[in-house]
């Protein structure tokens, strides 16, 4: 394999660098050009390039399937029938083999260690003791939050009642996970919903926060990878996808603190001993279908002004 491979990704910088490094260990002749930014920005750039008629990336690695579905619908993704999917749950990849989940990024509960209570369940966020002290990313601005909203509102016993209760309890919906983390870490807020790796990174650096896996389980996204129809170096692109789905690739994700999507790969060390890792049920197609109404509904609920 050789040539240049252009990768657009929303992975954190360090992770992306490690991934490329590990890939290059196998394919030293491929030069990987990386553009990294938030999902919104990566998509903004890609859509502009598509609109300008000259999309640059060969491979796209972003956080959520929703955007992948849209690209697929626009005919911009290439099917890769030959991908080795052994050990992958069929929920994690596209049936048409245009994109493949590479790891599971979960959203759970975060709390400031100085807070009086420790939230154990999603419902705890609606308790009176949490009133006004909870913060979460707004699905209006964050793809991961759309996903979380889609899962929670479809869960038995939660549903839209749950979001109504959150709104009742003065939960703040902010722009993204970063803001959520900072507010909890600095003690502005006591509890929140946040993606796992941010919370663990912060905790590892000594921030006064901890992550909690709720009893019902975590919501999750699968960080799918896809090859673009317009890719110039499809060979290398396939190799890259193969690598991500391989045992080494999955092991790397695990060592970076993510839950691997392939079964039989070692789990990351942050996973609590005492609690079973449960992932909540998720129907990506349904979430995508009702997304627009759901967002409207959310906006009405949390629309203070």
């Amino acid at each position, binding site marked *: 394999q050789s040539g240049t491979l252009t990768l657009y990704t929303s992975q*954190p*910088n*360090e992770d992306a660098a490690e991934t490329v490094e590990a890939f290059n260990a196998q394919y030293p002749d491929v030069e990987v*050009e990386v*553009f*990294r*930014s*938030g*999902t*919104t*920005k990566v*998509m*903004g*750039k890609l*859509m*502009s*390039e598509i*609109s*300008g008629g*000259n999309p*640059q990336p060969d491979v796209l690695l972003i956080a959520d399937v929703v*955007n992948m579905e849209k690209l697929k619908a626009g005919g911009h993704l290439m099917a890769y029938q030959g991908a080795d999917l052994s050990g992958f749950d069929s929920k994690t990849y596209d049936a048409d083999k245009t994109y493949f989940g590479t790891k599971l990024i979960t959203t759970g509960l975060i709390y400031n260690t100085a*807070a009086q209570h420790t939230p154990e369940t999603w419902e705890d966020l609606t308790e009176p003791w*949490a009133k*006004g*002290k909870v*913060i979460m990313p*707004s699905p*209006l*601005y964050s*793809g991961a939050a*759309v996903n979380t909203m889609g899962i929670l509102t479809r869960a038995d016993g939660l549903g839209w009642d749950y979001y109504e209760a959150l709104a009742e309890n*003065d939960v703040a*919906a*902010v*722009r993204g996970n*970063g803001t959520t*983390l*900072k507010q909890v*870490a*600095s*003690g*502005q*807020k006591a509890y929140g919903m946040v993606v796992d*790796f*941010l919370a663990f*990174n*912060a*905790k*590892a*650096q*000594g*921030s*006064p926060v901890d992550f909690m896996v709720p009893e019902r389980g975590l919501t999750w996204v699968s960080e799918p990878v896809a090859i673009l129809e317009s890719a110039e170096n499809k060979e290398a692109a396939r190799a890259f996808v193969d690598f991500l789905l391989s045992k080494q690739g999955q092991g790397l994700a695990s060592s970076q603190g993510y839950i691997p999507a392939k079964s039989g790969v070692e789990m990351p060390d942050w996973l609590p001993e005492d609690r079973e890792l449960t992932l909540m049920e998720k129907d990506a197609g349904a979430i995508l279908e009702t997304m*627009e109404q759901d*967002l409207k509904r959310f*906006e009405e609920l949390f*629309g*203070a*002004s």
Partner: protein
Amino acid sequence: MTLHKARLIGEGRPLLYATAGLVVLLSVVPMLRLLVEAVWPSGGLSLQPLREVLSDSATWRATRHSLEVGIAGTLLATVIGSAAALLFTLSDIRAKGPLVFAFVLPLMIPPQIAALSWLQVFGPSSVLLKILGLAPPLGSPNPLYSRAGIVLLLGTHFAPLVFLSLRAGLRALPRDLVEAARASGARAPATVVRIVLPVMMPPLVAGVALTFVSCIGNFGIPALLGIPANYQVLTTLIFQRLATFGPDVLSQVAILSVLIGVIAGSGIAVQGWMLTRKDYRLSGGGGDGLPFALGRWRGWIEAAAWGYGLAVLVIPLLAMLCTALVVGYGVPLTVETATLDNFRFILFDHDASARAFRNSMSLSAAAALILVPLCVVLAYFLVLKRDPLARALNVAAEMPYALPGVVLAVAAILIFIQPLPLTGGTIYNTVWIILFAYVARFLTLELRPIIAGCHQLDPALEEAARMCGAGILRRLWSIVLPLLAPAATAGALLVFMQALNELTVSALLWSSGAETLGVVVYNLESGGFTTKATAVAVLAVAATVAVMLALTLLAGRLPRGTLPWQK
């Protein structure tokens, strides 16, 4: 004698056309490209997105909100900025240099950091309030998450725009105009209100217009403070559209951007209208006027000025420093937790940071330096020659600054994604596209103060140079530029500081090796390395201070009054 030539091309036409061409490329082309995207998505006319956006109540609510916070924020910035400019220039307040520093530097503090630090100082976890026993209980709603909070942040963050513009103007105020008013029996307040401010209309209006456009186009502050309160403005609406990414997202974004452009453009039109009604040419030079004595108020006013500086500069700066000096975000700074690891990492172990410093410094400086001659020429034709072509470009120049950075970046991508015509080369994925975007975006920051300066020029000064046989380039270089130096530096400083801090444009345009400071901060931040990200921000402020101090060393060689913090 070159009669024939003179008849054919007129005075300096080629220069004007060259400049105009550049400005068209920088401002008109991106806007047109967006317009095409709005009504001509994927190669066919479609009014569907237009209809959709215009019939959506969210659009009009966001527009109303944008206008609300835009106008209120501008008013606040104008009050703060002009009060400071008047005090620091015309009164006998002490320590003017440091005060000017304290007033200009907050532009370097990312507004979200300022907001967070205020939230900390006045929020539940405030050490200060805890000591006083006044800390609100954890989780109590914070008043900054509101329209008022947005206005407060916009007002304080952009006050330096008004300040720098007005201060540059005040330094050209002929002493005798003030003296004539005082001899007429007018005291300091009446003199300021009736004489000084009206005479200073051009720089004041320029500062106000800039602030208005900045407030309308700002994303960071409403994103931080408005989203939790679900108070949506046009820029956050655009971001939302991009984030949720429906069909025709680019068309919708383009249409919303045009809406912002229209609002900003009407602001500039008002400015132009205000300035053509009256005469503001000042003859005679400035002079060290007898400053107004503050008398027994001096102590109080100084305390207020320093108190303000404390609030907008020192507190956020300390908050940044505290964050950058601990291992993890939220860890209280104590002797045990303090560490220089973050700085060590940024300075020695993080190649991207070093590159980003180099890139951002050179990009910002290059943008500032390119813009000075460009704007001097444009302003010269606009104000002194009343050239219709230059006038038309005046409004266009505003657009790239009014657009959200993401949108300008999208426009830049749309323009440069295909290989350049003729040469076949491309600037896409290089630093040059970022430079293009910077020059386009910050054009107006340089142009407004310079135009204001031009309005106050005595035309005889330029005529005298013509008489000496100096051609247009000579006159611009030897006469007009030095006379405009204070305004030009004020503008260049604004450009430099804004560009150094900028994220939203480069977030879409950077490529490996062409990172900017904003990109590095953002990437570190989104990887969860807030403390390291803050260390970069602290170093950026330090670098800016270093640049300003370095300029001070050059002060002797610059025309008098060039540096805003000089006496």
